[in-house]
C-alpha cells in the first residue's frame, strides 16, 4: 500500500481542472527545458522549439492519456482514503464499545427490541394487508351481496344470482358457492373430516386459476345428474394422498350434495389459490337440483370484473339491476339493492384496524428504544468529554467527531438489526404456528425480502437518528468549553442534561400511552371473559361425530345409543346433542309464522302471505337427550323435552327468553303455536312448552340471539347433531372413550372433540393476541423507561456529589438528601404522566373508532397506569438516592 505525500500531509484533493493544469504545466516545463538546451547547442529558438516537439512525439495524445490516467489515480486514492478512514472509525468504535460492554449490550438490546417488534408487526402487515392476493389481477375480484330494505347486507339466493349474471355487463365471470359443508370423507387411510363447498361452473374463472394438477370441471360434470367430479386443495392432497399424481382418477366418498356419494378427483388446486381459505373439496353445484326460492338465501357470490371496469361502475351496474328486480318482483325477494365489496377488503377489512394499532404500538416501542439509546449514548459522550476535547485540540474536526459517534451508532445499529431480525423471525414463527386462526392470510406472513429491506432501512435510520442526536451535544464548542473548564465543573452542559431529561420524559409519555392501551384492552378482555354467555364454560366435551344416515329411524337410534352409552361413562353428569352448539358449531336461522289455531293448515306460502305481525325470526336448533342440562342452560319456565314427546305426539318446542319476550311481549308464551316447517319441510305446528335462558351463539362479544329449540325424536329430518357431555372431571379424559363408542357404532365416522374451554378460548383468541402483543410491548416499554429514569437520575447524582456532600456537611439530614434525589425521579415521572395521559386521551378518540368495545377513558385503567409508572420511577431513582445518602462529606470536601 502506498502512502502518497498527499495522504500524509493531508493535501487537498485535485479537481479535474487542477489535473488538467498540472499536466499542461508538466509538459510545458519539459518542452521549455528541451528547447533551451537545443538553443544552447546553437539552434535558433524556432528550430529548437520544433525539434523539441518532434522529439516529444504525439503531444495531444499524451495529454489526453495522462489526463485520463491521473483522473483514475485520483479517484482510486480518494476511495482508498475513505475506506481507510471508515475502517479507522469502525476500529475505534469497536474498541470503545468493547471497553464498555454493559453500555453496548443495553443499547443493542433496547434497539433490537424496538426493531424486532416493528419488523415482526410489519411482516404481518405486509403478508396480510400489502401482498397482492395470489390470483391473477386480484384487484378485479369482488364479492356481491344482496341488500335488504333496511340496508343490511345479506347472502344471495340462486334465482337472484342468475338474474345478476344475465343482466349485468360489468363482469367477466360470476360464481355462486355454498357455505362450508363439514363432512366425513373416506380418504385412503380411513375416514376423515373435511370441508367442502358446492360451486357453480364459473367459480375457477372468477378465481382465474387452473388446477396445478389435472383439470377443471367439464360440461359433463356441471349439469344436473352429470358425472360426479371433485377438485381438492393442495393441503388435502398432500395430507391424504402424499402429494402423488396418482390421485387423479381416484374416488372419494363424501356426503356433500347428497349422502355417501362417490366423486372422481379430477384436479388439485395450486397451494396459493385455496379459496375460500381452509376449504378442502370443491364440487359442481349443478349436480344437485337448483333452489328456486328467491328467499332461499345463504349462498355466497363472487365475480371477476371485466378489464377496465372500475368497482364503482360495477357497483352502479349491479345496483341498477337489483333495484329493477325489486320493482319487478316486489315481496317475492327480500333484495332491494346490491353491494359490491372488493375481495381484498372482504378478506382483510376486519383486521386492518387491529394491525395498524399494533404497528403503531410497535413504533412507540421503537421510539422509546431510540430515546433510550440516544440517552445512553449522550451519557457516555459526557463521560468521554475530556478525551474528545483532547482530540479536538489535536485538530480533529467536528465532522470527524460526528463521524466517530455515527460509526459507534452504526455498529450498535448493525448488531441491533441482526438481533432484531432474529427476534422478528421468532415472532413470525410464533404467529404462523400459534396464531394461525387469529388472522386471515397468515400463510403469507414471513420475514422475506421486502421485510428484510424494511428492517435494514429502519435500522439505518435508527442508527443515524441516535448518532445525530448524541453527536449534536458533542459538538465542538461544548467540548472546547469542557477542555478549558476545571475537571469538576465538567458536568456536561446544562443543555445536554436538559436534552436527556426531555428524552426520558418522551419515553415515559410513550410508555404511558402503551400502558393505557394495554390496560384498556386488558380490562375490556376481562369484562368479556366475565360476560355470562348463557351456558357453562367448563367441564363439557364437544364431540362432532356425525355419520350420514339416511334412514330417519336409524339416525334416531344412532344418537339415542350414542347418548346412552356416553352417559354410562364414569364421571359423566349429563349428555345431549344439538344441531348447533354455542360458538363451536353454527346452525341455521330462519323465519317462522305464528298460528292462532293449531288445526289451521299452513304451507310455505304463509311465509310470504302472512302479515309481519304474524312472522318472526330466530335461530333454529334441534336438540336431543339432556342437552340443556349438559350445556348448563337453565330452564326458566314450563318444562323441558321429555320421553313422551315422540314423533306421533304433538310437536313441542322450547324458546329462549329473548324470543319469548319479542314474540309475545307481556304474555305467557307457554301453549302458543308456531310453525317452523320451512326448516325441514314438516309443517306440523309446534306448541311452546317451556322457556330457557338466552345464549350467545356467535361469540362472547355478540349479543344473545332469539332461539327456537325443536326435539330430535320429533324432527329427525334435521342435519347432523353435535354431542355435548358434561362431566365432574376433566372433559379431555372423555375424548378417548367417546371416540371408541362412536367407532363401535359406526366405524366410518371421523370424530372431532374439543372441550368447551377450548371453544371459548378459540373464540377470543384474536383479541387475546392483540392484548398479548400490546401488553408485551407495554411491559418492555416500562423496563426501558425505568432504565431511562435510572440513568438520568444516577447521572445527576454523580454530577451533584459535591453539592450533596456540602449539604451533608452543613447538616442536611440523610432523609432530606434521599428525598432530594427521589424528587428528581418523581418530577420526570410526573411530566411523563401528564404528557402521556394527554396523548392517550387524544389517541383514545382515534382508538375508539378503530377497535370495537374500547371506551378509551376508563378511569381505573388510567389510575392503574399512573400508579405503576410513578412506582417504577421512584424505584428507579431509589438506587441513586441511596448512593447520595452514602456520600461522605469529608471525602467530598477534601477532594475539592
Amino acid at each position: 500500500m502506498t502512502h502518497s505525500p498527499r495522504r500524509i500531509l493531508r493535501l487537498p484533493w485535485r479537481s479535474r481542472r487542477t489535473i488538467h493544469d498540472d499536466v499542461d504545466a508538466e509538459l510545458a516545463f519539459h518542452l521549455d527545458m528541451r528547447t533551451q538546451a537545443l538553443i544552447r547547442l546553437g539552434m535558433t529558438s524556432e528550430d529548437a522549439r520544433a525539434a523539441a516537439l518532434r522529439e516529444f512525439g504525439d503531444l495531444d495524445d499524451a495529454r489526453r492519456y495522462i489526463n485520463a490516467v491521473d483522473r483514475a489515480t485520483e479517484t482510486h486514492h480518494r476511495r482508498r482514503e475513505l475506506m481507510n478512514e471508515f475502517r479507522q472509525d469502525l476500529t475505534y468504535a469497536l474498541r470503545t464499545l468493547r471497553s464498555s460492554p454493559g453500555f453496548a449490550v443495553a443499547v443493542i438490546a433496547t434497539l433490537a427490541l424496538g426493531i424486532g417488534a416493528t419488523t415482526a408487526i410489519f411482516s404481518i402487515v405486509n403478508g396480510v394487508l400489502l401482498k397482492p392476493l395470489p390470483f391473477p389481477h386480484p384487484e378485479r375480484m369482488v364479492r356481491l351481496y344482496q341488500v335488504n330494505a333496511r340496508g343490511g347486507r345479506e347472502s344471495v339466493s340462486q334465482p337472484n344470482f342468475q338474474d345478476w349474471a344475465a343482466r349485468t355487463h360489468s363482469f367477466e365471470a360470476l360464481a355462486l358457492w355454498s357455505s362450508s359443508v363439514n363432512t366425513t370423507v373416506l380418504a385412503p387411510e380411513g375416514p376423515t373430516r373435511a370441508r367442502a363447498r358446492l360451486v357453480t361452473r364459473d367459480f375457477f374463472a372468477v378465481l382465474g386459476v387452473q388446477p396445478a394438477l389435472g383439470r377443471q370441471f367439464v360440461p359433463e360434470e356441471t349439469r344436473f345428474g352429470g358425472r360426479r367430479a371433485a377438485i381438492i386443495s393442495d393441503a388435502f392432497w398432500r395430507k391424504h394422498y402424499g402429494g402423488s399424481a396418482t390421485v387423479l382418477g381416484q374416488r372419494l366418498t363424501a356426503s356433500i350434495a347428497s349422502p355417501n356419494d362417490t366423486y372422481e378427483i379430477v384436479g388439485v388446486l395450486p397451494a396459493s389459490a385455496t379459496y375460500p381459505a381452509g376449504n378442502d373439496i370443491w364440487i359442481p353445484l349443478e349436480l344437485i337440483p337448483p333452489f328456486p326460492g328467491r328467499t332461499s338465501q345463504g349462498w355466497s357470490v363472487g365475480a371477476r370484473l371485466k378489464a377496465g371496469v372500475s368497482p364503482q361502475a360495477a357497483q352502479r351496474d349491479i345496483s341498477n339491476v337489483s333495484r329493477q328486480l325489486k320493482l319487478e318482483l316486489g315481496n317475492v325477494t327480500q333484495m332491494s339493492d346490491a353491494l359490491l365489496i372488493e375481495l381484498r377488503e372482504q378478506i382483510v377489512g376486519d383486521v386492518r384496524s387491529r394491525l395498524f394499532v399494533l404497528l403503531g404500538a410497535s413504533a412507540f416501542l421503537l421510539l422509546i428504544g431510540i430515546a433510550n439509546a440516544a440517552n445512553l449514548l449522550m451519557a457516555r459522550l459526557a463521560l468521554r468529554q475530556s478525551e474528545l476535547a483532547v482530540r479536538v485540540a489535536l485538530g480533529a474536526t467536528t465532522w470527524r467527531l460526528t463521524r466517530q459517534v455515527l460509526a459507534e451508532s452504526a455498529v450498535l445499529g448493525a448488531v441491533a438489526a441482526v438481533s432484531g431480525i432474529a427476534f422478528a423471525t421468532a415472532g413470525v414463527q410464533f404467529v404462523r404456528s400459534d396464531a394461525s386462526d387469529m388472522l386471515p392470510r397468515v400463510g403469507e406472513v414471513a420475514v422475506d425480502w421486502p421485510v428484510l429491506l424494511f428492517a435494514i432501512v429502519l435500522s439505518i435510520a435508527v442508527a443515524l437518528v441516535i448518532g445525530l442526536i448524541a453527536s449534536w451535544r458533542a459538538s465542538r464548542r461544548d467540548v472546547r468549553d469542557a477542555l478549558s473548564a476545571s475537571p469538576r465543573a465538567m458536568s456536561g452542559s446544562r443543555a445536554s442534561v436538559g436534552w436527556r431529561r426531555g428524552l426520558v420524559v418522551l419515553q415515559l409519555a410513550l410508555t404511558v400511552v402503551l400502558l393505557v392501551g394495554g390496560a384498556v384492552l386488558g380490562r375490556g378482555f376481562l369484562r368479556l371473559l366475565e360476560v355470562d354467555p348463557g351456558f357453562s364454560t367448563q367441564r363439557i366435551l364437544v364431540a362432532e361425530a356425525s355419520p350420514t344416515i339416511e334412514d330417519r329411524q336409524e339416525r334416531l337410534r344412532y344418537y339415542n345409543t350414542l347418548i346412552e352409552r356416553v352417559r354410562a361413562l364414569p364421571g359423566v353428569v349429563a349428555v345431549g346433542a344439538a344441531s348447533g352448539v354455542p360458538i363451536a358449531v353454527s346452525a341455521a336461522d330462519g323465519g317462522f309464522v305464528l298460528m292462532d289455531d293449531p288445526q289451521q293448515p299452513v304451507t310455505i306460502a304463509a311465509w310470504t302471505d302472512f302479515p309481519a305481525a304474524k312472522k318472526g325470526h330466530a335461530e333454529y336448533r334441534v336438540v336431543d337427550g339432556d342437552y340443556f342440562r349438559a350445556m348448563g342452560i337453565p330452564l326458566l319456565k314450563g318444562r323441558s323435552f321429555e320421553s313422551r314427546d315422540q314423533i306421533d305426539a304433538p310437536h313441542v318446542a322450547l324458546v329462549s327468553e329473548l324470543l319469548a319476550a319479542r314474540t309475545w311481549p307481556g304474555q305467557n308464551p307457554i301453549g302458543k303455536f308456531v310453525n317452523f316447517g320451512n326448516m325441514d319441510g314438516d309443517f306440523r305446528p309446534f306448541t311452546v312448552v317451556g322457556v330457557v335462558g338466552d345464549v350467545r351463539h356467535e361469540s362472547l362479544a355478540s349479543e344473545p340471539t332469539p332461539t327456537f329449540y325443536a326435539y330430535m325424536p320429533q324432527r329427525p329430518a334435521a342435519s347432523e347433531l353435535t354431542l355435548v357431555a358434561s362431566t365432574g372431571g376433566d372433559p379431555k379424559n372423555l375424548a378417548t372413550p367417546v371416540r371408541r363408542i362412536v367407532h363401535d357404532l359406526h366405524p366410518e365416522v371421523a370424530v372431532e372433540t374439543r372441550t368447551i374451554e377450548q371453544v371459548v378460548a378459540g373464540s377470543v383468541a384474536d383479541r387475546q393476541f392483540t392484548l398479548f402483543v400490546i401488553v408485551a410491548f407495554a411491559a418492555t416499554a416500562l423496563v426501558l423507561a425505568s432504565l431511562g429514569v435510572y440513568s438520568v437520575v444516577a447521572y445527576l447524582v454523580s454530577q451533584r456529589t459535591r453539592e450533596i456532600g456540602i449539604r451533608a456537611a452543613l447538616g442536611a439530614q440523610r432523609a432530606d438528601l434521599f428525598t432530594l434525589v427521589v424528587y428528581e425521579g418523581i418530577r420526570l415521572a410526573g411530566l411523563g404522566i401528564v404528557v402521556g395521559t394527554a396523548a392517550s386521551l387524544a389517541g383514545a378518540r382515534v382508538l375508539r373508532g378503530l377497535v370495537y368495545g374500547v371506551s378509551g377513558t376508563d378511569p381505573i385503567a388510567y389510575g392503574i397506569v399512573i400508579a405503576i409508572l410513578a412506582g417504577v420511577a421512584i424505584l428507579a431513582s431509589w438506587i441513586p438516592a441511596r448512593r447520595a445518602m452514602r456520600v461522605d462529606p469529608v471525602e467530598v470536601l477534601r477532594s475539592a
Partner: protein
Amino acid sequence: MATQPMDLLHGTLDVLVLRALVIGSMHGYALSRWIHDRTDGELIIEDAPLYKALHRLENAGYVTAEWGMSENNRRARYYALTGTGRAHLRAETKTWRRYTAVVERVLGPA
C-alpha cells in the same frame, strides 16, 4: 559499423523509467535526458510514451509524484520510486535477464 537506432521492445520502457528513479527522485525532463544519455541514442525513445509511462506507474503505485522546484527555479513534477516500485523493478529486471539469456543461448555465437 554504423547501425540504425532500434525501436523499443514493448514493455521495456517501464523498467527503464523505474531503473532511472533508483538514483533518486527526478522530474520528467531529467529522466528523459538520463535515459537518452545511457542509451547513447541507440534506442528511439520519444518523450510522449515516457510521460505516459510515468503517469501509468503512478497509477499503479510504483512511483509517487509531487511538485517541487527545478534547478532553474521553475515548478517541476518530481517522481520518486515507492517500495512496491522498487520490488517491481527487481522482479522485472530478473525476468528481463532470464529472457535475454534464453534468447542469447538460442541465437548462439553469430
